[in-house]
């Protein structure tokens, strides 16, 4: 069993090896991160943002830590100047832990005015013969007017215990456009914590989507600061859970400047004994006049045992704003089910079609069309058992 102390001890013991193969910019932030982590410890359920997930339990098993053996390339000046400036180690223990242990950072840097024609796809495939912990870091820098789409896919290729922490920092400079798609399709024994910190400057746009198709414990925390005039953020999420899966999405959209636009839609289909949680806060600061914000969370709870917690929050300190928030938790529509059965559709098939229809509302919002189509197929596969799925044969 590992608690806060053991992770601190691990870092002290391995510090020299960790530093030896990591860029200086990462090493420079370790000390403060370790101090913050030691001070805070793993958050208990009394910590507001972590009340739906038992973090200490997820970190308790003895995971091995694989350290790099070859030195990583130094960060560019632009990346080094930004690394760790958004990801707040002082208030978030998981971010602090990641910053303390991480050895490398993947940087996607798009120069001013440059438009990436094709999406950048990053696929992480988990493969190990013993329990493994990995700490990952991503930094996206879209300079003024740049345009980039990034797809992050997590897969598992081994039936093993995995624990992943990932911290992503996204800098959307004036007029830039970033789409970040996070698709988690792993397995029951995979636990993942993904902390996203994004900042959108004037006239910039960020779309961030989180699709949890399969996994064990998934926790995604997304903080977006709309710091420039007219900055936009679209957050989309879809979680499909069964078995003993647990998915917790926690978001904060921070409107700091006038004329910001935010749209948020998260949908969950929670089946069997699985649990889902959504907590989303929209904060409209003083001066963020003419903010336009819509937040919605809709959930389908398919069994008596499944559980869903939902907590949309709105805090407004500015006049002349247009904001709405709401959430629903419900079951499949019995009259629709019966209508379909009267037409000869079996109960199982009718339920599958209705669940897919529920999830498709989020999928249809995805601007990247090829990905949208692929996700429609993946979602259908997710809802069907192997026997009644003909998708692989096509």
């Amino acid at each position, binding site marked *: 069993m590992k608690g806060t102390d053991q992770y601190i001890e691990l870092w002290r013991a391995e510090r020299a090896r960790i530093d030896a193969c990591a860029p200086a910019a990462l090493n420079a932030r370790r000390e403060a991160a370790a101090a913050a982590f030691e001070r805070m410890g793993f958050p208990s359920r009394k910590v507001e943002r972590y009340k739906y997930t038992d973090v200490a339990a997820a970190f308790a098993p003895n995971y091995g830590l694989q350290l790099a053996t070859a030195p990583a390339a130094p960060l560019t000046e632009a990346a080094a100047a930004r690394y760790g400036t958004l990801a707040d180690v002082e208030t978030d223990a998981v971010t602090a832990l990641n910053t303390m242990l991480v050895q490398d950072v993947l940087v996607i840097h798009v120069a001013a005015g440059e438009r990436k024609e094709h999406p950048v796809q990053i696929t992480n495939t988990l493969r190990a013969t013993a329990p493994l912990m990995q700490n990952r870091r991503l930094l996206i820098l879209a300079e003024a007017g740049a345009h980039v789409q990034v797809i992050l896919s997590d897969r598992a290729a081994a039936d093993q215990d995995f624990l992943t922490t990932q911290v992503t920092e996204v800098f959307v400079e004036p007029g830039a456009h970033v789409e970040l798609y996070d698709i988690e399709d792993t397995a029951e024994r995979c636990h993942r914590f993904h902390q996203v910190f994004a900042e959108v400057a004037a006239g910039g746009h960020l779309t961030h989507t989180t699709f949890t198709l399969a996994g064990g414990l998934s926790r995604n925390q997304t903080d977006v600061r709309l710091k420039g005039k007219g900055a936009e953020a679209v957050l989309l999420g879809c979680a499909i859970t069964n078995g003993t899966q647990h998915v917790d999405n926690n978001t904060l959209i921070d409107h700091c400047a006038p004329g910001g636009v935010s749209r948020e839609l998260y949908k969950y289909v929670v089946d069997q004994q699985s649990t889902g949680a959504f907590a989303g806060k929209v904060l409209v600061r003083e001066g963020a006049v003419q903010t336009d914000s819509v937040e919605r969370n809709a959930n389908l709870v398919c069994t008596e045992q499944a559980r869903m917690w939902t907590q949309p929050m709105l805090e407004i300190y500015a006049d002349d704003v247009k904001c709405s928030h709401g959430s629903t938790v419900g079951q499949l529509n019995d009259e*629709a089910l019966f209508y379909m059965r*009267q037409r*000869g559709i079996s*109960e199982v098939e009718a339920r599958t*079609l209705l669940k897919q229809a529920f999830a498709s509302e989020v999928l249809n919002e995805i601007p990247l069309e090829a990905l949208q189509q692929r996700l429609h197929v993946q979602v259908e596969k997710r809802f069907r058992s192997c026997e009644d799925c003909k998708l692989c044969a096509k």
Partner: protein
Amino acid sequence: MLEIKNLHATIGGKEILKGIDLTVRPGEIHALMGQNGAGKSTLSNVLVGHPAYTVTEGTVTFHGKDLLAMSPDERAHEGLFLSFQQPVEIPGVSMVNFMRAALNAKRKYQGLEPLDAAAFLKLMRERRKIVELDNKLTSRSVNEGFSGGEKKRNEIFQMAMLEPTMCILDETDSGLDVDALRIVAEGFNKLRTPETAAIVITHYQRLLDYLKPDVVHVLIDGRIVKTGGPELALEIEQKGFGDLKD
């Protein structure tokens, strides 16, 4: 083909059907008339197996089989079709996917291969014409944003796709203007064969002018109190149900 004997049914513990006897033979059209609350819709819901209703007594055989022992989808596969009084909107489920799932489930039940995409779409195009249903409607979600008349036309379109032998029209005329009523009724008539039969629930003679029932029944308080020929419907149109109540 359909034989109902001494059928009693309840909803939420309240008895609505109190002993219905009705026999429908191939080729026949039976009209079922009666005031609101008499049990007309309950009878149609019980026949198609709506889970809210409980049959407490009686039997129903359909093509010689025990209808009440079948699941709602099996009843559909056996050839039973209900044109709903209020067709349900199903956002996110496209008409194409819905119809394909229904048709292929029936074909599977009959031991046939599923229709391929091209053959299926061709069939959709043909059958749409029967009720003059716009292409735009069949590319939408099931009944979503359809007008009242479009929903009823869509019911008859689905009937045309599934080719049932026994149709129940539950107030298919309600909410229809004169032109829509004609399209729906003529569409239905085009689908009739000597092997098909129907039970038509209605308050009005105007639908029966098109469908020309062979037998008319009057349902009062869960029982059929009078059965006659087409002239009975005309009599009710003029005098109401008052005289039949005793």
